[in-house]
Structures are given as structure tokens and as C-alpha cells.
């Protein structure tokens, strides 16, 4: 303990440590029966940190390039000590991160935490979610196996369907007209340089905003607490909430370790650009609902191409969803009810379509 205080004093003398962490010390977290949902953002952050660490470790052995990528991942999985663990954790944590980010987003919708003044927090969170999906999409290709190759081919093909700018976007993503080694090099660049930089920046903004506005209390409860301030219950962020969050992180780490050791991430077979596509090409699960929708949409909707309509609808829906906080105050609770309905619809649509996508051949 004396060592700890010693360090604290040393820091305090030079950096005014106490002042720096002062706001953190004052920060409180409301206690109610839905407090558990506050942990999701933190878990997502923790998984992101794991991704950064394991990603850096993987960079020690990974080699981008159509000739070497698969072999280098195979090398990591078979020859490097604990390479299987690092890679499996990286893959599992990536998927869990998207899952917790989605859960975090829906909890914000249903607890109406997006409402004024936290619109920008919501927006930065949405951008973070898109970035996370970009991480997933670009990272999926990096092992250069058959499934990833064709999933990328299909994914970028869909991008190419966007009217006017689609083709240029596809060429930009692929680094040419086709998915080749050039695509791999590009995706590698996005995955390890562009996206991490942007994400780190946005995470900092997101956290600063959360810090600035404090934790949102569900509106019903907030009203009750305002009426009777004595009922309001809070816990200190530090150490009470922080230690609880730490518990959650530890549990997440255990789950990750168990998944990696018992179900190591598969490698598949090396991609062969000239082979015909294997049956059952499917994207990562978080793109499944969109993929399945585009598959089921009729070829022609009115006079438009069905796929283009699907893409436009998803684009519009995504945009509206991003601007969701701004509808909250519209027309005496009508906007609020509409958002609630849209949230329930979106959640059930995503779940239903994802299940359908995996059940259907």
C-alpha cells in the first residue's frame, strides 16, 4: 500500500494527478434494476482492447499477399507457440465485440439513453458500430481462405450495385475489377492502419461524451427520482462501478479463453481465384440479415432492380436509424413511440432474418 501511495504522490507532484482523475472520482453511476446494461459498453471497449493487443501480436507473423497470407496464418496456427490461442481469441473477440456492440446499441434504444443531450454520443456510437463491421469485413479476408475469398467477392459485388457511385466504390475496395491479391493488400491496410486510427479517435470522443454527460437514467425512473430526490441511488464510478466492470471483463476473458481453447477458429482451405464458388457461401453472421434480405428480394421491384432497391432501403434505414435521437421530441410522444416500434421491429427483423439465413440453404 505504501508503494502505491508513493507512486500516487510522485504522480501528483508532477502531473497534478488528483486533479486529473478528480472528475472520475466524482463520477457516479445510478443504481436501478436495469443497471446491468451499463456494462455492455465497457465490455465492448474491453474486447476492442483485446483486439488491439492480439492484433499487434498477429502482425509479428502475418504476411499480407495472396501467395503468403494463408500460409502465414497456417504457420501461426501450427508452428508458433500459442499462435492458435492468439488467433482464436482475435477471431472470437471480434465476433463477441460486434455482438456486445449491437446489444449496447439496442439497450440504448430501449432505455432511451440516446435522448437529448446525448445525440452526439449516439452518433459517435453508430459510427463506431460501422467501423467495427468494417473491421470484421476487412479482417475476414485476411487469412485468404476459400470462404472469405468468395464472401468478399459477393460483399464487394453488392457494393458495386449502389447506383452511380457503386462501381467506383467496388473498384476502390477491390483495388481493381476483381478480388485479387491487390484486394488483400488494401484490406490489410484498412484493417491495421485506417480503421484502428479512426476507431481509437472515436472511442476517445465517445468516452469523453459519456464522461461529460454522465450516465443516462431511464426516463420513467428519472422523473420519479426528480420528484423524490431521496429515492435516487448512486454508486461511485470508482471504485464501485469500476471493480464491477472489472469482474465483467474477467468473465468475458474466461469465456474468450474457453471458446478459443475448445473451439479454435478454423482455417479452411486456401482460396483459389479460379475455383468455382463452393456451396453455401455466406458472410459473417452480422451481415447475414442484409445478405438474406437481398437474396430474397424479387429480381424486379416495379421497374427497378430488386437488389438496388434493397441496398437503397438499407441505406435509407441506416441513415434514419443514425438520426434516431432527433425524432424523439417530435409530436408529443408520437416520435418516441415510433422509435420504440422501430427498435422492436429492427431487432426482431435482424434476429429473424439471421436465423432464416442460417436455416435456409
Amino acid at each position, binding site marked *: 500500500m505504501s508503494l502505491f501511495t508513493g507512486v500516487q504522490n510522485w504522480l501528483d507532484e508532477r502531473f497534478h494527478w488528483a486533479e486529473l482523475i478528480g472528475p472520475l472520482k466524482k463520477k457516479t453511476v445510478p443504481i436501478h434494476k436495469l443497471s446491468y446494461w451499463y456494462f455492455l459498453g465497457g465490455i465492448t471497449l474491453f474486447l476492442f482492447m483485446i483486439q488491439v493487443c492480439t492484433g499487434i*501480436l498477429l502482425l*509479428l507473423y502475418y*504476411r499480407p499477399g495472396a*501467395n*503468403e497470407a*494463408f*500460409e*502465414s496464418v*497456417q*504457420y501461426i496456427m*501450427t*508452428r*508458433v*507457440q*500459442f*499462435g492458435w*490461442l*492468439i488467433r482464436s481469441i482475435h477471431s472470437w473477440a471480434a465476433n463477441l465485440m460486434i455482438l456486445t456492440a449491437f446489444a449496447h446499441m439496442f439497450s440504448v434504444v430501449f432505455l432511451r439513453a440516446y435522448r437529448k443531450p446525448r445525440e452526439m454520443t449516439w452518433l459517435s456510437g453508430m459510427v463506431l458500430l460501422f467501423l467495427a463491421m468494417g473491421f470484421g469485413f476487412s479482417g475476414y479476408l485476411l487469412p485468404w481462405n476459400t470462404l472469405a475469398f468468395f464472401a468478399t467477392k459477393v460483399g464487394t459485388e453488392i457494393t458495386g450495385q449502389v447506383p452511380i457511385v457503386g462501381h467506383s466504390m467496388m473498384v476502390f475496395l477491390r483495388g481493381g475489377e476483381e478480388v485479387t491479391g491487390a484486394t488483400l493488400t488494401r484490406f490489410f491496410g484498412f484493417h491495421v492502419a485506417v480503421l484502428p486510427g479512426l476507431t481509437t479517435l472515436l472511442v476517445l470522443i465517445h468516452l469523453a461524451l459519456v464522461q461529460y454527460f454522465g450516465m443516462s437514467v431511464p426516463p420513467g425512473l428519472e422523473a420519479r427520482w426528480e420528484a423524490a430526490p431521496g429515492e435516487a441511488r448512486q454508486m461511485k464510478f470508482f471504485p464501485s462501478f469500476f471493480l464491477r466492470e472489472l469482474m465483467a471483463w*474477467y468473465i468475458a*476473458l474466461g469465456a474468450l479463453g474457453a471458446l478459443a481453447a475448445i473451439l479454435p477458429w478454423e482455417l479452411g482451405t486456401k482460396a483459389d*481465384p479460379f475455383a468455382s464458388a463452393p456451396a453455401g457461401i455466406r458472410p459473417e453472421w452480422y451481415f447475414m440479415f442484409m445478405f438474406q434480405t437481398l437474396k430474397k428480394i424479387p429480381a424486379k421491384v416495379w421497374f427497378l432492380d430488386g437488389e438496388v432497391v434493397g441496398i437503397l432501403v438499407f441505406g435509407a434505414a441506416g441513415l434514419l436509424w443514425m438520426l434516431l435521437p432527433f425524432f424523439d421530441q417530435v409530436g408529443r410522444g408520437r416520435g418516441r413511440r415510433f422509435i420504440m416500434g422501430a427498435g422492436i421491429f429492427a431487432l426482431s427483423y435482424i434476429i429473424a432474418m439471421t436465423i432464416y439465413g442460417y436455416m435456409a440453404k
Partner: protein
Amino acid sequence: METQEPAKIQPVRRRLVEILLGGGVVASIVAFVYPVLRYLVPPPVPDLGGDEVVAAKLGDLKPNGSKIFRFGTRPALLLLTAEGEYRALSAVCTHLSCTVQYRNDLHEIWCACHNGLYDLNGRNISGPPPRPLDAFQVHVRGDEIVVSRKREA
């Protein structure tokens, strides 16, 4: 939350909790750091090659001689023609995937399983094989004979 326990037990219990927490944290950090440290140690085999492999050293092959080597996941055949030219081909017969061999008496590549014959360019010239053998590129780099997959244009 319970309250008011005998004051005497408190320090003992606190000590226990501290030991459990401290020990858990230290041990779990060791459990995280240990694999990472092991991961950092480079393995004895530098890499798995990829689409390029050192098939032989110069002088390993005599003119009109051959050797089977591993290329990726399949066997391949390196041969030195009587004229002193290196050729590298897939050694997997296109008929039923037996491993082919160079016949220095015939100056042809022969599959023993069903008497298939290929010429030195890998073209199937007699017997059951339905397709030519895949040909690879050969470079001589220093004293190493390097075989690589043909690049698509």
C-alpha cells in the same frame, strides 16, 4: 447487505479477501502473460513457404535426373533434362492422383498406376491421363533451385 458482524473477525476476513484477490490477479496475469511470451519466441522453422519453395541445390540433380519434392500440400517433380534444363511440374497424375515419376530411359514422365505418359512439358501423351500436369516456374538463385507457382497474367 448484512451489517454488524463481530469486530474481531473483520481483519481476518479482510486479509483472506485480499489474499484471494491479490493471488487471483497475479496468477491470472501470469496466465495471460505466459502464452504471450511463448508466442514471441520465434519457432525453429522460419515459415511454411507459400507459393515458392527451394526444391533442390545446384548439383543435386544429374542431367537426365529427377527428384520429388513437397510443394505446398502436394508432391512435385523437379527434373533436369539431358540438355541441362530444369523443369518443375506437379507430380500428381491427373488420372487418379498417383505420384508420377521421371523415366530416364524413356525421357518421359510416367505414372505407374495405369501406365500414363506425359512429355517433359507435362502434356499427357498416352494412357489414361485426361489433362496435362500443372507446370511450375523454376529459377536458379545462387546455388538454390527455386520453384514457384506460375503467376496469372
